[in-house]
Protein backbone atom coordinates (compact mmCIF):
# COMPACT_ATOMS: atom_id res chain seq x y z
CA UNK A 1 0.00 0.00 0.00
CA UNK A 2 1.47 3.36 -0.90
CA UNK A 3 1.92 6.06 1.71
CA UNK A 4 -0.74 8.32 0.31
CA UNK A 5 -3.48 5.76 0.73
CA UNK A 6 -2.33 4.18 3.98
CA UNK A 7 -4.77 6.27 6.03
CA UNK A 8 -7.76 5.42 3.89
CA UNK A 9 -9.82 2.69 5.49
CA UNK A 10 -13.35 1.63 6.32
CA UNK A 11 -14.85 3.32 9.37
CA UNK A 12 -15.26 -0.15 10.94
CA UNK A 13 -11.49 -0.64 10.67
CA UNK A 14 -10.66 2.81 12.01
CA UNK A 15 -12.90 2.40 15.06
CA UNK A 16 -11.42 -1.04 15.78
CA UNK A 17 -7.85 0.20 15.33
CA UNK A 18 -7.95 3.36 17.44
CA UNK A 19 -10.56 2.66 20.12
CA UNK A 20 -10.30 0.78 23.40
CA UNK A 21 -12.62 0.37 26.35
CA UNK A 22 -12.00 3.38 28.59
CA UNK A 23 -10.59 5.54 25.78
CA UNK A 24 -10.79 9.31 26.18
CA UNK A 25 -12.60 10.55 23.10
CA UNK A 26 -14.33 13.56 21.60
CA UNK A 27 -16.65 13.98 18.64
CA UNK A 28 -17.07 16.95 16.32
CA UNK A 29 -20.15 18.88 15.31
CA UNK A 30 -22.74 20.77 17.31
CA UNK A 31 -26.19 19.57 18.45
CA UNK A 32 -27.84 18.44 15.20
CA UNK A 33 -25.05 19.45 12.83
CA UNK A 34 -22.09 17.52 11.43
CA UNK A 35 -21.84 14.92 14.19
CA UNK A 36 -19.69 11.98 13.03
CA UNK A 37 -22.65 9.64 13.28
CA UNK A 38 -21.32 6.78 11.15
CA UNK A 39 -18.37 6.55 13.55
CA UNK A 40 -20.62 6.96 16.60
CA UNK A 41 -22.89 4.10 15.47
CA UNK A 42 -19.85 1.94 14.76
CA UNK A 43 -18.43 2.61 18.25
CA UNK A 44 -21.80 1.53 19.63
CA UNK A 45 -21.99 -1.61 17.45
CA UNK A 46 -18.46 -2.64 18.43
CA UNK A 47 -19.57 -2.32 22.05
CA UNK A 48 -16.93 -0.06 23.58
CA UNK A 49 -17.59 0.69 27.23
CA UNK A 50 -16.59 3.07 30.00
CA UNK A 51 -15.52 5.77 27.56
CA UNK A 52 -14.45 9.18 28.86
CA UNK A 53 -16.24 11.60 26.55
CA UNK A 54 -15.39 15.30 26.16
CA UNK A 55 -18.11 17.44 24.60
CA UNK A 56 -19.10 21.05 24.28
CA UNK A 57 -22.59 20.80 22.72
CA UNK A 58 -22.33 17.73 20.48
CA UNK A 59 -25.95 16.73 21.05
CA UNK A 60 -27.03 13.87 18.80
CA UNK A 61 -23.87 11.78 18.98
CA UNK A 62 -23.43 12.30 22.71
CA UNK A 63 -26.95 11.14 23.53
CA UNK A 64 -26.69 8.06 21.29
CA UNK A 65 -23.38 7.05 22.92
CA UNK A 66 -24.85 7.53 26.41
CA UNK A 67 -28.04 5.72 25.42
CA UNK A 68 -26.02 2.72 24.26
CA UNK A 69 -24.19 2.56 27.59
CA UNK A 70 -20.77 3.37 26.10
CA UNK A 71 -19.95 6.35 28.32
CA UNK A 72 -18.71 6.15 31.92
CA UNK A 73 -17.52 9.73 32.38
CA UNK A 74 -18.66 12.84 30.58
CA UNK A 75 -17.26 16.37 30.59
CA UNK A 76 -19.76 18.61 28.90
CA UNK A 77 -21.11 22.15 28.46
CA UNK A 78 -24.54 21.53 26.98
CA UNK A 79 -26.68 18.46 26.42
CA UNK A 80 -29.63 19.57 24.34
CA UNK A 81 -30.66 18.79 20.80
CA UNK A 82 -32.77 21.40 19.09
CA UNK A 83 -36.53 21.23 19.21
CA UNK A 84 -36.79 17.49 19.81
CA UNK A 85 -34.92 17.50 23.12
CA UNK A 86 -34.39 20.67 25.20
CA UNK A 87 -32.35 18.34 27.37
CA UNK A 88 -30.96 15.20 25.71
CA UNK A 89 -33.21 12.44 26.97
CA UNK A 90 -30.85 9.53 27.63
CA UNK A 91 -28.30 11.97 29.09
CA UNK A 92 -30.91 13.28 31.55
CA UNK A 93 -31.95 9.77 32.51
CA UNK A 94 -28.37 8.57 33.04
CA UNK A 95 -27.50 11.58 35.23
CA UNK A 96 -30.70 11.32 37.27
CA UNK A 97 -30.19 7.59 37.77
CA UNK A 98 -26.54 8.05 38.69
CA UNK A 99 -25.19 5.75 35.97
CA UNK A 100 -23.08 8.50 34.40
CA UNK A 101 -20.44 10.64 36.08
CA UNK A 102 -20.73 14.14 34.67
CA UNK A 103 -18.58 17.24 35.02
CA UNK A 104 -20.05 20.57 33.87
CA UNK A 105 -18.21 23.34 32.06
CA UNK A 106 -19.38 26.10 29.70
CA UNK A 107 -19.03 26.08 25.93
CA UNK A 108 -16.21 28.62 25.96
CA UNK A 109 -14.41 26.71 28.71
CA UNK A 110 -14.62 23.42 26.77
CA UNK A 111 -13.50 25.10 23.54
CA UNK A 112 -10.55 26.69 25.34
CA UNK A 113 -9.66 23.36 26.91
CA UNK A 114 -9.38 21.79 23.45
CA UNK A 115 -7.37 24.82 22.29
CA UNK A 116 -4.97 24.40 25.24
CA UNK A 117 -4.55 20.76 24.27
CA UNK A 118 -3.96 21.73 20.65
CA UNK A 119 -1.38 24.31 21.70
CA UNK A 120 0.43 22.05 24.12
CA UNK A 121 -0.07 24.36 27.10
CA UNK A 122 -1.50 23.16 30.44
CA UNK A 123 -4.35 25.66 30.51
CA UNK A 124 -5.95 28.67 28.89
CA UNK A 125 -7.22 31.77 30.71
CA UNK A 126 -10.69 33.28 30.56
CA UNK A 127 -12.79 35.85 32.41
CA UNK A 128 -15.84 33.59 32.36
CA UNK A 129 -17.64 31.95 35.23
CA UNK A 130 -16.76 33.80 38.45
CA UNK A 131 -19.50 33.20 40.98
CA UNK A 132 -20.88 30.25 39.02
CA UNK A 133 -21.19 26.83 40.64
CA UNK A 134 -19.44 25.48 37.56
CA UNK A 135 -16.31 26.51 39.47
CA UNK A 136 -17.30 25.32 42.95
CA UNK A 137 -19.44 22.20 42.37
CA UNK A 138 -17.30 19.33 41.14
CA UNK A 139 -18.87 16.30 39.46
CA UNK A 140 -15.55 14.48 39.72
CA UNK A 141 -14.36 14.58 43.35
CA UNK A 142 -10.83 15.56 44.32
CA UNK A 143 -10.17 11.92 45.33
CA UNK A 144 -11.39 10.59 42.02
CA UNK A 145 -9.25 13.15 40.19
CA UNK A 146 -6.13 12.33 42.17
CA UNK A 147 -6.64 8.62 41.57
CA UNK A 148 -6.81 9.06 37.80
CA UNK A 149 -3.63 10.40 36.16
CA UNK A 150 -5.62 11.18 32.98
CA UNK A 151 -7.76 13.81 34.76
CA UNK A 152 -6.32 17.04 36.22
CA UNK A 153 -6.37 17.29 40.03
CA UNK A 154 -8.43 20.46 39.87
CA UNK A 155 -11.51 21.17 37.81
CA UNK A 156 -10.74 24.90 37.41
CA UNK A 157 -8.36 27.33 39.11
CA UNK A 158 -8.77 31.06 39.81
CA UNK A 159 -5.65 33.25 40.00
CA UNK A 160 -5.12 36.99 40.50
CA UNK A 161 -4.46 38.76 37.20
CA UNK A 162 -0.65 38.60 36.94
CA UNK A 163 -0.70 41.68 34.70
CA UNK A 164 -2.25 44.09 37.18
CA UNK A 165 -5.65 45.25 36.00
CA UNK A 166 -4.99 44.64 32.28
CA UNK A 167 -8.36 44.12 30.52
CA UNK A 168 -9.95 45.48 33.72
CA UNK A 169 -9.71 41.99 35.17
CA UNK A 170 -8.82 41.45 38.81
CA UNK A 171 -8.96 37.67 38.47
CA UNK A 172 -8.46 35.07 35.76
CA UNK A 173 -9.99 31.60 35.49
CA UNK A 174 -7.68 28.84 34.24
CA UNK A 175 -9.24 25.93 32.35
CA UNK A 176 -7.21 22.73 32.03
CA UNK A 177 -6.09 21.29 28.69
CA UNK A 178 -7.73 18.25 27.09
CA UNK A 179 -5.82 15.81 24.91
CA UNK A 180 -8.23 13.04 23.83
CA UNK A 181 -6.94 9.66 22.70
CA UNK A 182 -9.19 9.84 19.66
CA UNK A 183 -11.39 12.50 18.07
CA UNK A 184 -13.94 11.66 15.40
CA UNK A 185 -15.06 14.36 12.98
CA UNK A 186 -17.16 14.39 9.84
CA UNK A 187 -16.26 16.85 7.07
CA UNK A 188 -17.47 17.73 3.60
CA UNK A 189 -14.16 17.02 1.93
CA UNK A 190 -10.97 15.21 2.87
CA UNK A 191 -8.05 14.01 0.81
CA UNK A 192 -6.40 10.62 0.98
CA UNK A 193 -3.62 11.99 3.19
CA UNK A 194 -6.15 13.32 5.70
CA UNK A 195 -6.26 17.05 5.00
CA UNK A 196 -9.78 18.40 5.70
CA UNK A 197 -11.93 21.12 4.18
CA UNK A 198 -14.99 22.08 6.21
CA UNK A 199 -17.70 24.27 4.71
CA UNK A 200 -19.72 26.44 7.06
CA UNK A 201 -19.18 26.68 10.79
CA UNK A 202 -16.26 24.67 12.13
CA UNK A 203 -17.66 24.71 15.72
CA UNK A 204 -14.64 23.44 17.72
CA UNK A 205 -13.69 20.63 15.32
CA UNK A 206 -10.31 22.11 14.45
CA UNK A 207 -9.20 22.52 18.07
CA UNK A 208 -10.58 19.09 18.99
CA UNK A 209 -8.70 17.46 16.12
CA UNK A 210 -5.41 19.21 16.83
CA UNK A 211 -5.61 18.31 20.54
CA UNK A 212 -6.01 14.59 19.86
CA UNK A 213 -3.47 11.78 19.66
CA UNK A 214 -5.51 10.24 16.85
CA UNK A 215 -8.10 11.77 14.55
CA UNK A 216 -10.53 9.68 12.54
CA UNK A 217 -12.10 11.67 9.72
CA UNK A 218 -15.21 10.58 7.87
CA UNK A 219 -16.06 12.59 4.78
CA UNK A 220 -18.74 13.19 2.19
CA UNK A 221 -16.15 13.41 -0.59
CA UNK A 222 -12.75 11.74 -0.67
CA UNK A 223 -10.37 13.43 -3.10
CA UNK A 224 -6.74 13.25 -4.23
CA UNK A 225 -4.35 15.57 -2.32
CA UNK A 226 -3.86 17.75 -5.39
CA UNK A 227 -7.51 18.73 -5.29
CA UNK A 228 -7.10 20.38 -1.88
CA UNK A 229 -3.77 22.00 -2.71
CA UNK A 230 -5.60 24.50 -4.85
CA UNK A 231 -6.97 27.15 -2.45
CA UNK A 232 -5.27 25.59 0.62
CA UNK A 233 -6.52 28.56 2.64
CA UNK A 234 -9.91 26.86 2.59
CA UNK A 235 -8.51 23.85 4.46
CA UNK A 236 -8.66 23.84 8.24
CA UNK A 237 -6.93 20.63 9.29
CA UNK A 238 -3.67 19.54 7.61
CA UNK A 239 -2.98 15.82 7.26
CA UNK A 240 -0.37 15.85 10.09
CA UNK A 241 -3.11 15.51 12.70
CA UNK A 242 -5.08 12.76 11.03
CA UNK A 243 -4.72 9.00 11.52
CA UNK A 244 -7.55 7.65 9.40
CA UNK A 245 -9.76 8.85 6.54
CA UNK A 246 -13.02 7.05 5.81
CA UNK A 247 -15.23 7.81 2.86
CA UNK A 248 -18.78 7.75 4.24
CA UNK A 249 -21.36 9.72 2.24
CA UNK A 250 -24.22 10.73 4.57
CA UNK A 251 -21.79 9.94 7.39
CA UNK A 252 -23.31 12.63 9.62
CA UNK A 253 -26.90 11.46 9.05
CA UNK A 254 -29.28 12.12 10.87
CA UNK A 255 -27.42 15.38 11.60
CA UNK A 256 -26.87 18.07 8.97
CA UNK A 257 -23.94 18.73 6.66
CA UNK A 258 -23.98 22.24 5.21
CA UNK A 259 -24.40 22.22 1.44
CA UNK A 260 -24.98 18.44 1.42
CA UNK A 261 -28.05 17.64 3.51
CA UNK A 262 -30.15 18.91 6.39
CA UNK A 263 -30.83 17.13 9.66
CA UNK A 264 -33.55 14.50 9.52
CA UNK A 265 -36.27 15.87 11.80
CA UNK A 266 -38.27 12.65 11.28
CA UNK A 267 -35.50 10.48 12.69
CA UNK A 268 -34.71 12.90 15.53
CA UNK A 269 -38.40 13.01 16.53
CA UNK A 270 -38.64 9.22 16.43
CA UNK A 271 -35.48 8.95 18.51
CA UNK A 272 -36.82 11.44 21.09
CA UNK A 273 -40.14 9.64 21.32
CA UNK A 274 -38.45 6.27 21.83
CA UNK A 275 -35.78 7.58 24.21
CA UNK A 276 -38.40 8.53 26.82
CA UNK A 277 -39.20 4.87 27.49
CA UNK A 278 -36.62 2.13 28.16
CA UNK A 279 -38.46 -0.62 26.31
CA UNK A 280 -39.30 1.52 23.32
CA UNK A 281 -35.73 2.78 23.21
CA UNK A 282 -34.35 -0.77 23.15
CA UNK A 283 -36.69 -1.62 20.28
CA UNK A 284 -35.55 1.52 18.48
CA UNK A 285 -31.87 0.68 18.97
CA UNK A 286 -32.43 -2.91 17.86
CA UNK A 287 -33.92 -1.67 14.64
CA UNK A 288 -31.72 1.30 13.72
CA UNK A 289 -28.41 0.43 15.40
CA UNK A 290 -27.92 -3.24 16.08
CA UNK A 291 -30.24 -4.41 13.33
CA UNK A 292 -28.08 -2.94 10.58
CA UNK A 293 -24.53 -4.03 9.67
CA UNK A 294 -23.23 -0.55 8.92
CA UNK A 295 -24.22 3.07 8.24
CA UNK A 296 -25.53 2.21 4.79
CA UNK A 297 -27.99 -0.10 6.54
CA UNK A 298 -29.38 2.86 8.50
CA UNK A 299 -29.61 4.93 5.31
CA UNK A 300 -31.51 2.09 3.66
CA UNK A 301 -33.97 2.07 6.55
CA UNK A 302 -34.41 5.84 6.23
CA UNK A 303 -35.14 5.31 2.57
CA UNK A 304 -34.55 7.32 -0.57
CA UNK A 305 -37.56 9.54 -0.02
CA UNK A 306 -36.28 10.85 3.32
CA UNK A 307 -32.76 11.36 2.00
CA UNK A 308 -34.25 13.27 -0.92
CA UNK A 309 -36.35 15.42 1.44
CA UNK A 310 -33.29 16.54 3.43
CA UNK A 311 -31.11 17.21 0.40
CA UNK A 312 -29.52 20.68 0.60
CA UNK A 313 -30.65 23.45 -1.69
CA UNK A 314 -27.72 24.70 -3.82
CA UNK A 315 -28.24 28.37 -2.88
CA UNK A 316 -28.76 28.20 0.88
CA UNK A 317 -26.99 24.97 1.82
CA UNK A 318 -30.01 23.58 3.69
CA UNK A 319 -33.32 21.96 2.72
CA UNK A 320 -35.62 24.92 2.04
CA UNK A 321 -39.15 24.58 3.44
CA UNK A 322 -38.37 21.23 4.99
CA UNK A 323 -40.92 20.21 7.60
CA UNK A 324 -39.10 20.71 10.89
CA UNK A 325 -41.69 21.51 13.57
Amino acid at each position, binding site marked *: MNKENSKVMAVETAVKRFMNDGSHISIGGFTLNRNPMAAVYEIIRQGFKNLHLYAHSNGTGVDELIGAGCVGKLEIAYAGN*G*KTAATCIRFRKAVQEGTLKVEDYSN*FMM*SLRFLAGAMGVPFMPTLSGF*GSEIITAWGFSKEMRQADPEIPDDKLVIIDNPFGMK*QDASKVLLVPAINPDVTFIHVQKADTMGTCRIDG*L*TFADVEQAKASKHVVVTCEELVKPDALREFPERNQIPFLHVSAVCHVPYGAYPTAV*YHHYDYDAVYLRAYAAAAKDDDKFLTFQKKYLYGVPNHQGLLNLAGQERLEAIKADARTGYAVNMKRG
Partner: protein
Amino acid sequence: MQTQDYSLKEMMAIMAAREIKNGDIVFAGTGISMLAAAAAKNINAPECVIFFETGAIDSAIEELPLSVGDPRVMYGSASNAGLLEAFATMQNRITGDKVIAILGAAQIDRYGNLNTTAIGDYHQPDIRFSGSGGGCDVASFVPRCIAFMQHEKRKFVEKLDYLTSPGQLQGGGSREAAGLRPGGVNVVITNMAVMRIDSESGEMYLDRYYPGVTPKIILDNMQFSVDVSKAKQAKPPTETELTTLRQKCDPQRLILG
Protein backbone atom coordinates in the same frame (compact mmCIF):
# COMPACT_ATOMS: atom_id res chain seq x y z
CA MET B 1 -60.44 43.28 29.98
CA GLN B 2 -60.55 43.23 26.22
CA THR B 3 -60.25 40.00 24.35
CA GLN B 4 -56.63 39.49 23.51
CA ASP B 5 -55.89 39.33 19.83
CA TYR B 6 -52.31 38.30 20.44
CA SER B 7 -50.76 35.37 22.26
CA LEU B 8 -48.47 35.61 25.28
CA LYS B 9 -45.66 34.25 23.17
CA GLU B 10 -46.15 37.11 20.75
CA MET B 11 -46.27 39.60 23.61
CA MET B 12 -43.01 38.21 25.04
CA ALA B 13 -41.24 38.27 21.69
CA ILE B 14 -42.29 41.88 21.07
CA MET B 15 -41.39 43.04 24.59
CA ALA B 16 -37.91 41.56 24.08
CA ALA B 17 -37.58 43.00 20.57
CA ARG B 18 -38.27 46.47 21.97
CA GLU B 19 -35.20 46.14 24.21
CA ILE B 20 -32.97 45.80 21.15
CA LYS B 21 -31.64 48.97 19.52
CA ASN B 22 -30.02 49.75 16.21
CA GLY B 23 -26.30 49.07 16.46
CA ASP B 24 -26.73 46.31 19.04
CA ILE B 25 -25.07 42.98 18.45
CA VAL B 26 -27.72 40.46 19.44
CA PHE B 27 -26.66 37.12 20.86
CA ALA B 28 -29.55 34.80 20.12
CA GLY B 29 -30.24 31.33 21.43
CA THR B 30 -33.02 29.02 20.29
CA GLY B 31 -36.80 29.17 20.41
CA ILE B 32 -38.48 32.39 21.43
CA SER B 33 -35.14 34.21 21.78
CA MET B 34 -34.47 33.60 18.10
CA LEU B 35 -37.93 34.94 17.31
CA ALA B 36 -37.37 38.07 19.42
CA ALA B 37 -34.09 38.76 17.63
CA ALA B 38 -35.76 38.34 14.25
CA ALA B 39 -38.61 40.62 15.37
CA ALA B 40 -36.19 43.37 16.39
CA LYS B 41 -34.35 43.08 13.08
CA ASN B 42 -37.60 43.31 11.09
CA ILE B 43 -39.41 45.90 13.19
CA ASN B 44 -37.53 48.35 15.36
CA ALA B 45 -33.81 47.73 14.93
CA PRO B 46 -33.09 46.86 11.28
CA GLU B 47 -29.42 47.62 11.77
CA CYS B 48 -28.89 45.27 14.68
CA VAL B 49 -26.58 42.33 14.03
CA ILE B 50 -27.69 38.85 15.02
CA PHE B 51 -25.01 36.37 15.92
CA PHE B 52 -24.77 32.87 17.30
CA GLU B 53 -22.46 31.16 19.76
CA THR B 54 -21.58 28.62 17.09
CA GLY B 55 -19.70 31.38 15.26
CA ALA B 56 -22.08 32.71 12.59
CA ILE B 57 -22.30 36.51 12.42
CA ASP B 58 -25.09 38.50 10.71
CA SER B 59 -26.70 35.45 9.10
CA ALA B 60 -29.38 35.90 6.46
CA ILE B 61 -32.25 34.34 8.39
CA GLU B 62 -34.59 33.29 5.60
CA GLU B 63 -35.94 30.48 7.78
CA LEU B 64 -35.90 30.51 11.58
CA PRO B 65 -33.14 28.26 12.90
CA LEU B 66 -34.36 25.77 15.53
CA SER B 67 -30.94 25.36 17.04
CA VAL B 68 -27.83 27.52 16.99
CA GLY B 69 -26.23 24.55 15.23
CA ASP B 70 -28.87 24.67 12.48
CA PRO B 71 -27.40 25.10 8.98
CA ARG B 72 -29.87 28.01 8.62
CA VAL B 73 -27.48 30.17 10.68
CA MET B 74 -24.68 29.57 8.16
CA TYR B 75 -26.35 30.96 5.06
CA GLY B 76 -25.47 34.49 4.04
CA SER B 77 -23.47 35.30 7.16
CA ALA B 78 -20.54 37.72 7.30
CA SER B 79 -18.38 34.97 8.71
CA ASN B 80 -18.76 31.32 9.59
CA ALA B 81 -16.16 30.68 12.26
CA GLY B 82 -16.42 28.60 15.41
CA LEU B 83 -17.16 28.69 19.13
CA LEU B 84 -13.84 30.26 20.14
CA GLU B 85 -14.37 33.23 17.84
CA ALA B 86 -17.97 33.72 18.99
CA PHE B 87 -17.10 33.81 22.68
CA ALA B 88 -13.98 35.90 22.07
CA THR B 89 -16.23 38.47 20.39
CA MET B 90 -18.14 38.76 23.67
CA GLN B 91 -15.14 38.57 26.02
CA ASN B 92 -13.38 41.28 23.99
CA ARG B 93 -14.78 44.55 25.31
CA ILE B 94 -14.39 46.37 21.99
CA THR B 95 -17.20 44.24 20.54
CA GLY B 96 -18.54 42.65 23.73
CA ASP B 97 -19.82 45.90 25.19
CA LYS B 98 -22.23 46.23 22.24
CA VAL B 99 -23.76 42.80 22.78
CA ILE B 100 -27.25 42.23 24.12
CA ALA B 101 -27.93 38.58 24.87
CA ILE B 102 -31.16 36.64 25.17
CA LEU B 103 -31.15 33.69 27.56
CA GLY B 104 -33.61 31.28 29.15
CA ALA B 105 -33.45 29.34 32.41
CA ALA B 106 -35.18 26.84 34.65
CA GLN B 107 -34.78 29.08 37.70
CA ILE B 108 -33.95 32.72 38.38
CA ASP B 109 -33.37 34.51 41.69
CA ARG B 110 -33.86 38.13 42.79
CA TYR B 111 -30.36 39.04 41.59
CA GLY B 112 -30.84 37.69 38.06
CA ASN B 113 -28.65 34.64 38.58
CA LEU B 114 -29.74 31.72 36.40
CA ASN B 115 -29.94 27.95 36.80
CA THR B 116 -29.94 25.86 33.62
CA THR B 117 -28.23 22.83 35.15
CA ALA B 118 -30.19 20.89 37.75
CA ILE B 119 -33.08 20.80 40.21
CA GLY B 120 -32.29 19.09 43.49
CA ASP B 121 -28.81 17.99 44.50
CA TYR B 122 -26.26 18.57 41.72
CA HIS B 123 -24.74 15.12 42.16
CA GLN B 124 -28.07 13.26 42.26
CA PRO B 125 -30.49 15.68 40.63
CA ASP B 126 -34.27 15.29 40.63
CA ILE B 127 -34.29 16.92 37.21
CA ARG B 128 -31.24 17.41 35.07
CA PHE B 129 -31.23 20.15 32.42
CA SER B 130 -28.93 20.79 29.49
CA GLY B 131 -26.31 22.74 31.46
CA SER B 132 -24.62 26.04 30.75
CA GLY B 133 -23.92 25.83 27.06
CA GLY B 134 -22.69 29.33 26.40
CA GLY B 135 -25.01 30.84 29.03
CA CYS B 136 -22.42 31.20 31.79
CA ASP B 137 -19.94 32.79 29.38
CA VAL B 138 -22.46 35.25 28.00
CA ALA B 139 -23.74 36.26 31.43
CA SER B 140 -20.13 36.76 32.51
CA PHE B 141 -19.11 38.89 29.55
CA VAL B 142 -21.86 41.12 28.20
CA PRO B 143 -23.40 44.23 29.75
CA ARG B 144 -27.06 43.52 28.90
CA CYS B 145 -28.92 40.20 29.02
CA ILE B 146 -32.62 39.52 28.60
CA ALA B 147 -33.89 36.44 30.42
CA PHE B 148 -37.05 34.76 29.15
CA MET B 149 -38.98 33.04 31.96
CA GLN B 150 -42.37 31.57 32.70
CA HIS B 151 -43.81 33.33 35.73
CA GLU B 152 -44.11 30.45 38.20
CA LYS B 153 -43.22 30.03 41.88
CA ARG B 154 -40.90 27.12 41.15
CA LYS B 155 -38.97 29.25 38.64
CA PHE B 156 -38.68 32.56 40.56
CA VAL B 157 -36.95 31.08 43.59
CA GLU B 158 -35.53 32.37 46.85
CA LYS B 159 -32.43 30.24 46.30
CA LEU B 160 -31.25 28.59 43.08
CA ASP B 161 -30.60 24.85 43.22
CA TYR B 162 -27.48 25.54 41.13
CA LEU B 163 -26.04 28.86 39.99
CA THR B 164 -25.07 28.31 36.34
CA SER B 165 -24.91 31.83 34.90
CA PRO B 166 -23.97 34.78 37.10
CA GLY B 167 -26.20 37.83 37.46
CA GLN B 168 -25.57 40.21 40.36
CA LEU B 169 -24.59 37.22 42.58
CA GLN B 170 -25.64 38.41 46.07
CA GLY B 171 -26.17 42.04 45.02
CA GLY B 172 -24.40 45.06 46.50
CA GLY B 173 -21.41 44.93 44.16
CA SER B 174 -20.67 41.24 44.81
CA ARG B 175 -20.59 40.59 41.05
CA GLU B 176 -17.63 42.89 40.54
CA ALA B 177 -15.98 41.70 43.76
CA ALA B 178 -16.05 38.14 42.42
CA GLY B 179 -14.04 39.25 39.39
CA LEU B 180 -16.82 39.78 36.87
CA ARG B 181 -17.44 42.83 34.74
CA PRO B 182 -20.66 44.78 35.17
CA GLY B 183 -23.35 42.90 33.23
CA GLY B 184 -25.49 39.80 33.48
CA VAL B 185 -29.28 39.68 33.30
CA ASN B 186 -30.81 43.16 33.53
CA VAL B 187 -34.25 42.48 32.04
CA VAL B 188 -36.57 39.54 32.72
CA ILE B 189 -39.44 39.02 30.31
CA THR B 190 -42.16 36.61 31.37
CA ASN B 191 -45.64 35.58 30.34
CA MET B 192 -46.98 38.20 32.80
CA ALA B 193 -44.50 41.02 33.12
CA VAL B 194 -41.26 42.78 32.40
CA MET B 195 -38.97 42.87 35.43
CA ARG B 196 -35.70 44.74 35.65
CA ILE B 197 -32.63 44.56 37.84
CA ASP B 198 -31.92 47.78 39.71
CA SER B 199 -28.38 48.84 38.92
CA GLU B 200 -27.75 50.12 42.45
CA SER B 201 -29.08 47.30 44.62
CA GLY B 202 -28.71 44.53 42.04
CA GLU B 203 -32.27 43.40 42.91
CA MET B 204 -35.21 42.70 40.65
CA TYR B 205 -38.22 45.03 40.50
CA LEU B 206 -41.47 45.03 38.57
CA ASP B 207 -41.38 47.46 35.67
CA ARG B 208 -44.38 46.54 33.47
CA TYR B 209 -47.29 44.16 33.90
CA TYR B 210 -49.30 42.89 30.96
CA PRO B 211 -52.93 43.86 30.37
CA GLY B 212 -55.16 41.57 32.40
CA VAL B 213 -52.48 40.90 35.04
CA THR B 214 -52.01 42.72 38.35
CA PRO B 215 -48.85 43.19 40.44
CA LYS B 216 -50.49 40.96 43.07
CA ILE B 217 -50.94 38.09 40.63
CA ILE B 218 -47.29 38.49 39.65
CA LEU B 219 -46.08 38.43 43.25
CA ASP B 220 -48.27 35.40 43.92
CA ASN B 221 -46.28 33.58 41.26
CA MET B 222 -42.88 34.20 42.82
CA GLN B 223 -41.12 32.82 45.91
CA PHE B 224 -39.57 36.22 46.64
CA SER B 225 -41.10 39.67 46.82
CA VAL B 226 -40.04 42.58 44.63
CA ASP B 227 -40.63 46.32 44.54
CA VAL B 228 -43.81 46.99 42.54
CA SER B 229 -44.03 50.73 43.28
CA LYS B 230 -42.69 51.78 39.86
CA ALA B 231 -44.84 49.33 37.88
CA LYS B 232 -47.06 50.41 35.01
CA GLN B 233 -49.11 48.53 32.48
CA ALA B 234 -47.18 47.37 29.43
CA LYS B 235 -48.08 48.63 25.99
CA PRO B 236 -49.40 45.67 24.02
CA PRO B 237 -48.01 44.80 20.57
CA THR B 238 -49.16 47.10 17.78
CA GLU B 239 -50.82 45.84 14.60
CA THR B 240 -47.59 46.48 12.69
CA GLU B 241 -45.51 44.57 15.22
CA LEU B 242 -47.88 41.61 15.18
CA THR B 243 -48.18 41.49 11.40
CA THR B 244 -44.42 41.57 10.92
CA LEU B 245 -43.88 38.97 13.62
CA ARG B 246 -46.40 36.59 12.09
CA GLN B 247 -45.80 37.13 8.40
CA LYS B 248 -42.11 37.94 8.20
CA CYS B 249 -40.44 36.42 11.24
CA ASP B 250 -42.19 33.08 11.68
CA PRO B 251 -44.47 32.34 8.73
CA GLN B 252 -43.98 28.61 9.31
CA ARG B 253 -45.16 29.15 12.93
CA LEU B 254 -42.25 27.09 14.22
CA ILE B 255 -42.03 29.06 17.44
CA LEU B 256 -45.42 30.78 17.53
CA GLY B 257 -47.09 27.36 17.25
